[in-house]
């Protein structure tokens, strides 16, 4: 059987699609984090400082995966 010809010819780096996919999870994660912190501060404003610090700790962990996606896209 002869080889078929391609339907579409897309040229470029698939790493950009990989990075695009990597942004989905951290985006939702950070959105949830900040939303929950907002709710909690609205309920109990006197602990706002401690809640903000916890939000930043969580943000550092969640954002790590998005940043690894960016670096992996640039490296390969």
């Amino acid at each position, binding site marked *: 059987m002869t080889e078929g010809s391609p339907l579409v010819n897309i040229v470029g780096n698939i790493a950009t699609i990989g990075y695009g996919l990597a942004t989905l999870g951290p985006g939702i994660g950070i959105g949830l984090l900040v939303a929950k912190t907002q709710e909690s501060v609205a309920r109990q404003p006197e602990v706002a*400082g401690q809640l903000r*610090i916890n939000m*930043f*700790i969580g*943000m*550092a*962990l969640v*954002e*790590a995966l998005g*940043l690894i996606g*960016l*670096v992996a896209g640039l490296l390969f």
Partner: protein
Amino acid sequence: MHIPSIAEFFPPVIAFEGTIFEINRITLVRLVSALAVSLLFWAAARRAQLVPGRAQNVAEMALDFVRVNIAEEVLGERRARPHVPLLTVMFFAIVAMNITGVVPLLNMASTSVVTVPLLLAVVAWIAFVVAGIKAHGAIGFVRASLFPSGVPWPIYIILAPIELISTFILRPATLTVRLMANMLAGHLLLVMFFSMTSYLFVETSGLMKGLGVLTFGAAFAFTLFEIFVAVLQAYIFTLLTAVYISLAQEAH
């Protein structure tokens, strides 16, 4: 039309080519921002009086921001004292180097090349490791980081490698990449908006010039956003350093 690319961040060498002291435009901007921030604080602190005048007042407000809102909020008033100088220097160095990305003649944030964020992240890593070793002793610090308490012992087999990578490798790596990627992306977007505006105004005709007004509006709005991001990224970097120091000092 000047299409932005990664080559923006590797401009031609001005002096000392081939050695490790190579100076290009970005190094010059870095030197200018370091000089500017040093001069600002020297001028504000010179002849410091008990009742501050205006310039000293502004400098005190800025320093108090780092001391109260970052160091004391995270570490508590007593534990924060040894670390306030480091956090202050970190915060103002990052603000000064980020803000040059929007200053009109400089137009390049020297934190957008990996050198400066990497150096600052290594300093932060040393800071929290030394703080942990001082609090727990070397073996105790490794044990408290890699084997957190309150976990049944079979889980340590998978938890310890994860904690090892997460604590000692990912923390400085994400600090670096977060700062660098934010500044890099901001610079590329600004260059794209401004070069698109100049292209539409100069080399097209008729209705396309109207599009140039839109892109100029976007460039203006984005410049304001970049100023906000510059201060925010400095705040996040310094706050995370303080948080890592605090986590390293706590007994688990």
